[in-house]
């Protein structure tokens, strides 16, 4: 088990290397001079040239890459070109909002998606099933920015039940934090809930068709126990996979959602960083996100082993 863990972690190294190279090169392809954003549009050419030298932009690309990756390996993600803050500090500052958003979305997925999926599967081919699966498709088919705009319009502007924007750290004002996170979390969570619902329904139906369910029925077990213990537990294994795969998707959703709700999270950090060509911040933030996603995949595999005794590492 420990050996497996270490081996999987070791396998991350080539993947992360690929990620770093792709990320670095891709970002260097971005057109536009980063000094414009830093010095303002009326800065002189000489000032901009001097700043470029300061930022090391006049050295060869491989050199810049080595400098960056060398820093990363020693735990130094560099400094923001724009604000000169340490990138690591910026990321630490931005993580809570995104993590909270993701956690609430996942919580919604578990608390709503799984029970709804079970209900749909148990009531297969009834109006309940149709309604739930229909809602699922609807949620999957609504772009996040559209949903977010509608939610703001209805709840913040028309009904005025929640503030339309702003972020308060949970540690400072839990209630204020939560009330502001409701709409973003619903936005981000909508897809995850739908995906979990659909997967739960699908794999529960599949599990209910297995031989061991017939065996359990033949021993006279109650339907309720058969569904919740004998079928659901087996059905959860693919649900866990799919939910874990959603972590990456969740990050995409937060990019859009944080932008609309102006939440200071990783999504806005990355997008604004790309737009303002603050490449050290983008590199650092994406690297953190990617590493996180990869670690989640690893944890998922460990969760399998916990859910399914047949799997040993």
């Amino acid at each position, binding site marked *: 088990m420990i050996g497996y863990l270490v081996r999987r972690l070791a396998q991350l190294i080539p*993947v992360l290397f690929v990620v770093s190279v792709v990320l670095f090169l891709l*970002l260097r392809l971005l057109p536009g001079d980063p000094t414009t954003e830093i010095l303002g549009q009326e800065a002189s050419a000489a000032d901009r040239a001097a700043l470029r030298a300061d930022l090391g932009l006049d050295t060869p690309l491989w050199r810049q890459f080595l400098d960056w990756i060398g820093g990363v390996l020693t735990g130094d993600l560099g400094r923001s070109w724009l604000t000169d803050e340490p990138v690591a500090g910026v990321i630490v500052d931005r993580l809570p909002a995104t993590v909270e958003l993701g956690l609430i979305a996942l919580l919604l997925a578990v608390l709503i998606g799984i029970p709804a999926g079970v209900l749909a599967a148990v009531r297969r081919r009834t109006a309940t099933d149709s309604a739930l699966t229909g809602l699922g498709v*609807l949620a*999957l*088919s609504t772009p996040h920015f*559209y949903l977010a705009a509608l939610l703001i319009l209805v709840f913040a502007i028309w009904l005025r039940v929640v503030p339309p924007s702003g972020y308060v750290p949970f540690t400072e004002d839990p209630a204020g934090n939560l009330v502001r996170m409701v709409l973003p979390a619903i936005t981000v969570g909508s*897809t995850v809930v739908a995906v979990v619902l659909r997967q739960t329904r699908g794999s529960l139906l599949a599990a209910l068709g297995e031989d061991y369910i017939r065996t359990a029925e033949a021993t006279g077990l109650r339907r309720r126990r058969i569904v919740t213990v004998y079928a659901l537990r087996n059905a959860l294994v693919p649900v866990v996979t799919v939910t874990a795969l959603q972590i*990456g998707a969740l990050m995409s959703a937060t990019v859009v959602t944080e932008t609309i709700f102006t939440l200071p999270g990783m999504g806005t950090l990355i997008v604004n960083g790309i737009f303002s060509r603050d490449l050290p911040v983008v590199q650092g933030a994406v690297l953190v996100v990617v590493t996180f996603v990869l670690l989640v995949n690893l944890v998922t595999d460990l969760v399998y082993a916990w859910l399914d005794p047949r799997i040993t590492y």
Partner: protein
Amino acid sequence: MATETTTTRDARRPVLTRLLRDRRARFALPVLATVAVAAVASPLLGDRSAATDTDRLLTGPSARHLLGTDELGRDVLARIVDGAAVTLAVATVAVGLALVLGTLLGLVAGYRGGWIDALLMRTVDGLLAFPLLVLALTVVAALGPGLRNALIAIAVVATPRFARVVRGEVLSLRTREWVSAAHIVGVPTPALLRRHLLPHLAGTLGVFAALQASTAIIAEASLSFLGLGVQPPQPSWGAMVAAGTDHLDASWSLSVFPGLAILLTIAAFNLLADALRDAFDAHRPDLTPGR
């Protein structure tokens, strides 16, 4: 070859029949057909969708403009019809490109195995760990905004997904006895891949392509929302919704109708995927859509 044609028809008929009997497909296919017809027929409308009229801004639905006008006084209906072309391009060209490339990579990785597989799959793992939108965003930002580059970006993002699904499928297919039989009798590898593996991927690929189409449309819409998608004056539904959300309270119809178009199309692809999956009778967890 006469036998070939009879077979393909024969082989697909049950799937097609089952598909046509499916409630979801009965909804999805007409919607998608409408989108396709709109995309193909839009040039017939001429420049109706481009004609601005600053005296008629943000009007609601009327006899003259069935779905109202936008912030530049253009006819929303004409623009939705025009925008169908973009959506169709995303769903066909970008997803098609990813399908071809991804299938190729997945076939090679899955069938050959060894270091090629390891190299390809590590790369795929890395690419998949990128949040889809961030990757697409960066690619578009690097290449420059526009339809062509958005298509490339979406294809880049979707290719590893296809590669992974195909590889998984190939790994299980290659142990099938009919594949072994073909190998034993000396069917050359390319022919073996083409004749014995590819046709069996059709179901999986069909379902996955439909799901990826919906993902791709959302991605294009999101790119457009962030301003990096299709560039004006070419209308795209995503950009129209984005523009419409700026005028939500001045004109509800502006974002609602293109939003509905996008929602219906994505829903159609999702439902088609569901119907296809049932028609092919494949319950596979890794086919659930991801963004």
